[in-house]
């Protein structure tokens, strides 16, 4: 209860700040109204545990209460009123985090009316935000939860150089998008390299080439730098005027496009860039140095393995598929060992889906990549590979202080698996989000049904 009020207070303060001071960057457009769903204090006993940060513990208990992880250890005492679950022979892991999802913006059914993931009217749309396109009734959210996914970054598509903001969501059923927004998670800015922007805009005024892509990025970073300087001057003038009790200056006109870019320059919005080719990633890294911003993650990153050392040196994550590729030229050089090759170089490897089907089996993608790596002589432990699914994406998304690992004080975003999740028969048996049991494979009443599927063939069926 206390936590809930605290969250509400923080949100209220945010609103107050936004209305009293004119901000140069629009930090939280319509704030989160998410509240953890009421939960029981629970102990999962005698499980095999991957903590998501490289640890593997056998015959171990995981205890969580009030939505937070309290303790992980052997033979923990059981407090009165705690729900006890025998997890003997089962596995416990942090909930999976997908850093690249279009659930809600490209929902099922994929009919034209639902296509809200790409604002293909201009190559520069940093002013738009995926949250305004999310349809919370997408049945894909429920399928992803059954696949152990507890949080995801919903991104706009990759048609545009600057595609717009991405939003971090908790995978909870909700009437509103705000009810899913991960409290205090930073926004992402989706950018795109390569073929997509030039294919979409080549006959519509450009960019028509990779050269045009780069000039489009750079021109807008220059504008953002100028816009930020204007606001800095205004803020300085305002402070001076207040101090000297003079007439207050009027603020510069707001520019939604540039606000997002300034958010990036101020390190408040995370750059997530769709980029396949190694040579292109290397030039984008130079561009980020030119303008002084940080690239968080290259997405798809088919050729990340060719520059695994450069990515590691620059502290940039690569979000990858296990074995997709080949569908376009920039994906032609895919290799099955891309993910383990990033890990081997000391980099930050992430398994992502970009797919309503793939998001349901991210753990299987990790298993395949791990096995392919081992066969090629790259020896990585199961427990280290689990970081690809939870703590690495959490770090990249700026929520690692809250979720992505099983550590005391973190959100109880937890999956109980009926077997080793890297084996083919394994499935999430129970999925907890902030401690609340929101999916149970054995309890049909815990199979959330979206409004869309209600009364339709297959409603409430096992999926």
């Amino acid at each position, binding site marked *: 209860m206390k936590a809930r009020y605290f969250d509400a207070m923080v949100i209220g303060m945010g609103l107050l700040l936004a209305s009293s001071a004119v901000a140069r960057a629009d930090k939280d457009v319509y704030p989160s109204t998410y509240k953890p769903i009421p939960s029981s204090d629970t102990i999962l006993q005698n499980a095999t545990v991957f903590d998501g940060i490289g640890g593997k513990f056998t015959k171990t208990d995981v205890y969580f209460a009030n939505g937070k992880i309290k303790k992980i250890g052997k033979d923990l005492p059981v407090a009165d009123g705690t729900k006890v679950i025998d997890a003997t022979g089962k596995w416990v892991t942090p909930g999976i985090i997908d850093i690249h999802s279009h659930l809600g913006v490209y929902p099922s059914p994929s009919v034209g009316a639902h296509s809200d993931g790409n604002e293909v009217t201009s190559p520069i749309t940093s002013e738009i935000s995926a949250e305004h396109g999310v349809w919370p009734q997408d049945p894909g959210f429920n*399928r992803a939860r059954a696949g152990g996914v507890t949080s995801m970054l919903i991104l706009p598509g990759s048609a545009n150089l600057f595609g717009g903001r991405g939003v971090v969501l908790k995978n909870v059923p909700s009437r509103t998008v705000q009810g899913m927004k991960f409290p205090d998670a930073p926004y992402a800015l989706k950018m795109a390299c390569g073929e997509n922007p030039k294919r979409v805009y080549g006959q519509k005024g450009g960019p028509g080439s990779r050269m045009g892509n780069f000039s489009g990025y750079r021109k807008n970073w220059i504008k953002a730098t100028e816009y930020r300087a204007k606001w800095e001057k205004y803020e300085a003038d305002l402070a001076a005027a207040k101090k000297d009790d003079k007439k207050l200056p009027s603020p510069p006109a707001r520019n939604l496009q540039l606000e997002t870019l300034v958010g990036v320059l101020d390190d408040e919005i995370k750059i997530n860039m769709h980029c396949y080719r190694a040579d292109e990633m290397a030039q984008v890294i130079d561009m980020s140095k030119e303008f002084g911003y940080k690239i968080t993650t290259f997405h798809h990153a088919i050729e990340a393995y060719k520059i695994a050392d450069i990515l590691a040196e620059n502290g940039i994550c690569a979000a990858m598929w296990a074995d997709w590729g*080949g*569908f376009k030229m920039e994906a032609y050089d895919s*290799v099955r060992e891309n993910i383990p090759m990033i890990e081997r170089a000391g980099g930050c490897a992430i398994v992502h889906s970009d797919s309503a089907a793939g998001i349901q089996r991210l753990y299987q993608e990790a298993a395949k990549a791990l096995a392919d790596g081992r066969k090629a002589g790259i020896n990585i432990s199961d427990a280290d590979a689990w970081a690809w699914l939870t703590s690495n994406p959490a770090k990249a998304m700026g929520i690692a202080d809250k979720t992505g690992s099983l550590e005391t004080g973190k959100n109880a975003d937890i999956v109980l698996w009926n077997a080793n999740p890297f084996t083919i028969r394994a499935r999430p048996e129970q999925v907890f989000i902030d401690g609340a049991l929101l999916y149970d494979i054995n309890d049909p009443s815990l199979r959330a049904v979206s409004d869309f599927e209600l009364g339709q063939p297959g409603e409430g*069926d096992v999926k």
Partner: protein
Amino acid sequence: MSKLYFALLATLLFSSPAAIAQDFAIVGGKTITNQDNNIIEDGVVIIQDGKITSVGSRGKTDIPAGISVIDAKGKWVTPGIFTPFSRVGLVEVSLEKSTNDTRAKDSPFSAALQAFDGFNPKSENIAITRIEGVTRMAVLPAASSTIFAGSGALADTSGSFSSISRTPAFMYVQMGEAGASIAGGSRSAAWTWLRQALGEAKTWRRGREPAEPLLTAADALAIQDAMADDLPFLIAVERASDLMTLIALKSEFRDLNVVAVGASEGWMVASELAKADIPVILDPHRNLPQGFQSLGATMYNAVRLQKAGVRIAIATLSDEAFNSRLVLQHAGNTLATGMDWNHAFAAITSEPARIFGKEKTWGKLKPGMIGDVVIWDGDPLELMSSPDMVFIAGEKQDMTSRQTRLRDRYLSIGDDNPLPYGYR
């Protein structure tokens, strides 16, 4: 001409000298025969002249003196995987039209188009598929100018120029939402088109063409030949009501060898499909209401159909050639829905062979069958298993691909090598 002579001639015609298979025995593996005695824990498989000549347990099976022996202790030994739906060899990079021979929107022909004319055994996608244990595949075009995509072919994954049979093996027809759109805008239009086309093709005679033909002569004759040869007509439908219409079509055209492809809502009409004896090629991963035609989609489709007595084969129903190799994962994922292992594995080996009329040729480890054998480092349906060796018609296959070459080149990052990667 004697059968033996014909077989010899075929060997001479279709095999390059390098492809002449050695005789060998695979000994000691957990051997999956796909026969009634399905699993032999300590098995022996003998392959001579490219064919399986003997299968049994060690100690009870004679191993010819002097034959080369492959030790498979701790390994699994199975028939090669048969993917019943793929675009492998027809497309290199799907978004690059110049490399994509799957569809032909502007062609005057449709049913007459033959997949084998476009098939490239040197495609990168062949090797990446082969090294995952897939030895046989159905290769099919995609529909675009009419609901008839054309004829598909059966190919092996050896990469040799003789790897595809240059005769139509089946017809592929697109119905459902996509078919409705191609046929003019509605399901009624698509079914009418299909019935008219089948009727017209059946009675087509040169010199006595209908006054206002629906089909070109080439298309009509292609359909006619396929019907006369009892080739499977693979018909893509998803919605339960479309499957019921398909069942009605089969009772109207009694000679038609109908196979349903997709069938996301198949489980809703499972007993009807069983009664109509319509096999289904499906993708178990389809569990989303991707369109209004698949609102009932569930991963349990496969097991429900199988338990209702419907013959099923499992595929990755993807237009992307690089996805065909994932068929093992797709089959494996039915295990968690209650499918037993034997049925899941048969759905990617012997059942596709049966659907395509090749049940005596491929799909089992059985004397007389072609020597397509894979030795795995574990259970082939497990995510972390992979093949150690692949044999096609008794010939040991290369286990490298362009992908493994790229991997090996860049595994050298950090080596003290001053030469650019282009020399490594």
